[in-house]
């Protein structure tokens, strides 16, 4: 029997919760199929993905280490996405934030001041914001598409990073590796427990989440952004500035991504190097959508993706999988989520064979 999609009168709350869950189930099934075809041990891989990350305390802290930057960036991106500002260059903003923060320990190698870390925090945030501001300016002044601009700015940021690491900022004692000196302890966040990499910077995304929740759910500023995203004409009618919405969205994302970059160099990495972002800037886009652009939903989505990344690392070793397997899983997640999300606003209806039986050709 043929079906058609019919718009629901109200968004389905059930589907809103079921959509991310079914996306997880569907991608797991497809992924298992792919593993089977590739002749990889399916059960062991799934075990590595979903159970292994919780097997010991260290793994759990590693999950939270990944959770932090994903959460931080995704919360900010979601604000922009709700205002229909498509910033997909959080990766670049994160790189520039990391670079700006690193300038402090690079230029003050011998300093042991207590102000090192605060200065890095401020510079990291400002760096990310400055990079995002370029896109905001081009969008508001010349109506340049922010998707292209933010994406291309990411490439530029990457080249800037390579230039610094191969040139002026290269560690003179580093055997010509493209990385800076290891930062002094005063330039690093304190580990939460001895022997683990998870550190005090985890407070930043948690505080940021609370602020964003208040901003989006209770504050007029968030309301204005959402109106602009849902009905641009109504925003103009009310007198909300569309340009301001672009600036707020992009600066907020730059702020968060810059801080995320900063907490990587001042945290688990401890220096500036080429792989400073670990792809957080892109994964955060998936997190934002998987969390239905909702501050609370994003907390769960960020946690899930963090588990997946740690699990992926385990699977690389235990099941001899390539790293792209993790990317495939992430990609499937987003695609299935977007597909199932349709059912939040639409439902399947069978096309009834109406009681009007004869066709028009019958007559003519």
């Amino acid at each position, binding site marked *: 029997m043929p079906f058609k999609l*019919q*718009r*629901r*009168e*109200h968004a389905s709350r059930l589907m809103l919760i079921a959509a991310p869950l079914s996306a997880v189930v569907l991608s797991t099934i497809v992924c298992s199929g792919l593993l089977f075809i590739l002749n990889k041990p399916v059960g062991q891989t799934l075990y590595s993905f979903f159970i292994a990350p919780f097997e010991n305390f260290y793994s759990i802290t590693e999950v939270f280490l990944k959770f932090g930057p994903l959460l931080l960036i995704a919360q900010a991106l979601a604000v922009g996405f709700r205002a229909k500002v498509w910033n997909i260059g959080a990766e670049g903003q994160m790189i520039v934030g990391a670079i700006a923060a690193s300038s402090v320990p690079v230029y003050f190698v011998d300093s042991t001041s207590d102000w090192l870390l605060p200065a890095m925090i401020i510079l990291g945030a400002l760096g990310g914001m400055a990079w995002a501001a370029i896109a905001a300016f081009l969008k508001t002044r010349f109506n340049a598409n922010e998707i292209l601009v933010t994406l291309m700015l990411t490439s530029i940021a990457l080249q800037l990073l390579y230039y610094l690491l191969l040139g002026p900022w290269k560690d003179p004692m580093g055997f010509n590796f493209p990385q800076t000196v290891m930062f002094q302890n005063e330039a690093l966040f304190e580990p939460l427990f001895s022997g683990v990499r998870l550190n005090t910077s985890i407070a930043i995304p948690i505080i940021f989440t609370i602020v964003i929740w*208040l901003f989006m759910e*209770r*504050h*007029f*500023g968030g*309301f204005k952004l*959402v*109106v602009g995203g*849902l*009905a641009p*004409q*109504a925003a*103009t*009618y*009310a*007198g*909300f*500035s569309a340009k301001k919405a672009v600036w707020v969205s992009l600066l907020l994302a730059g702020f968060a991504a810059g801080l995320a970059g900063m907490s990587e160099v001042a945290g688990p990495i401890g220096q500036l190097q080429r792989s400073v972002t670990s792809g957080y800037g892109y994964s955060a886009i998936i997190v934002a959508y998987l969390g239905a652009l909702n501050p609370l939903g994003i907390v769960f989505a960020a946690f899930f993706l963090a588990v997946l990344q740690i699990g992926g690392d385990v699977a690389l070793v235990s099941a001899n999988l390539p790293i792209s397997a993790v990317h495939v899983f992430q990609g499937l997640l987003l695609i299935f989520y977007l597909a199932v999300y349709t059912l939040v606003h639409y439902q399947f209806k069978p096309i*009834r064979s*109406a*009681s*009007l*039986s*004869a*066709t*028009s*050709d*019958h*007559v*003519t």
Partner: protein
Amino acid sequence: MSANLPLLSLKNITKRYPSVVANDNICLDVHANSIHAVLGENGAGKSTLMKLVYGLIQGDSGEMLWQGQRVQLRNPAAARKLGIGMVFQHFSLFETLSVVENISLTIPGPRHDLSQKIREIGERFQLTVNPDASVHSLSVGERQRVEIIRCLLQDLKLLILDEPTSVLPPQHISALFKALRKLRDSGVAILFISHKLEEIRELCDTATVLRGGKVAGTIDPTITSTQELATLMIGHEVASIQSRSDKPKSEQALLQLESVSVASDDPFGTSLRDINIQVHGGEIVGIAGVSGNGQAELSRLISGEQIDRNLATNAIRMMGQPVTYLGAAQRRALGFAFVPEERLGRGAVPLMSLAQNTLLTTFDKGLLKGGFIQRKKLQSQTDECIQEFDVRCGGVNAVAGSLSGGNLQKFIIGRELMLSPKLLFVAQPTWGVDIGAATAIRQRLLNLRDSGIAVLIVSEELEELFEITDRLHVINSGNLSPSLNTADVTPNDIGEYMIGQSPGSKQETRHAV
């Protein structure tokens, strides 16, 4: 075909939508050689029924007989094959192509022959139009003729016209009626959809009245009074409106536009030329005109949604202050309120609740504390608006998109009035609103005027403007007529301004302040 066998017969047609039964057991017979009116308020199910007949949508149950045989129309192509043609309110013509080019897109045959046929049909039915003219140079009436001719070129037996007069000035309406009568006499059946009672009584042979998706009655409009028709259409008697008051107007103009000229960026938009308007407290000023003559551009300029930096500082003034460069929110802070023509997407956000939609324009009225939304206060204020303006809805948390057009309009007008404005601007105040609600809205506008507020109205409904305005302007291709005292002019005078001729013989028409 025997004379009493109907050309088209609908038997117990039902069409359900998720929230409403649009057509409920509709029975309708249309005969050749007759003009059959389908009459009803907005939301009565007229359009749904016509779309069913034209094959655009399919019914859930019931059957359709064409010349006595059961048919099922899967798409408009099947309907056209039978000889059913439809002219929609919004024409489907390419503006950059000529008349004959447009027609040759759907009718096969060499252009030259088509041009010849267009001329012949034009002469025969008084639907003259130049086949080689570009569509963008044609008036609305001429474009409508092109649409009708296009239907006639394909062996037409039944012509469906959806609110054909709503886009026409009065002069063109009588021309259309002449053509339709000729068509009827040539054997074509016409389904004429309208909610205007007078014209149905003038033109139609039979009328089927729809109310709430059901047939309320089938009557002979030539012997039924307008009052009876209205009662049948809305189910109860129409309240009459209280007449004009003679209260003095304010000294100062609360809205003043001086030599406002704005060139349009859009090649198909309308440039405004030297617009002058004054609205005083205690009067209602109306702007008449066929839509698309600059109303949209003028509205955005007055509301502050569009700001033109080329205008002089003093070009637009509100409450005596220059506002030319002020945005919408700043103008609102001065005591200006605006109800736009598009309710969903402009006047209200469809996916947001009524409470959130209240916040849209009333945030300045103590609803924010340090930027945070005072949710209790917002809820109670929204609830007040719903109660006072009789908005039928599922409460303050119902989303705006779930309200009917009329109820949403009541909500938006209510919201804007709660701002207690000094100057109120309403575009199409009763467009798509049922008669009962429309009467209430008009009465409220009159009461506002009597309390000293300046009211500006843009409307396409001449009757409405004559009913409530004190003065009138007519807009045509971006030009605004001088101010006319409503009491001193006739609909025909206004019609002449609408089609761009100032009534030369009517020099005695007094031009008000």
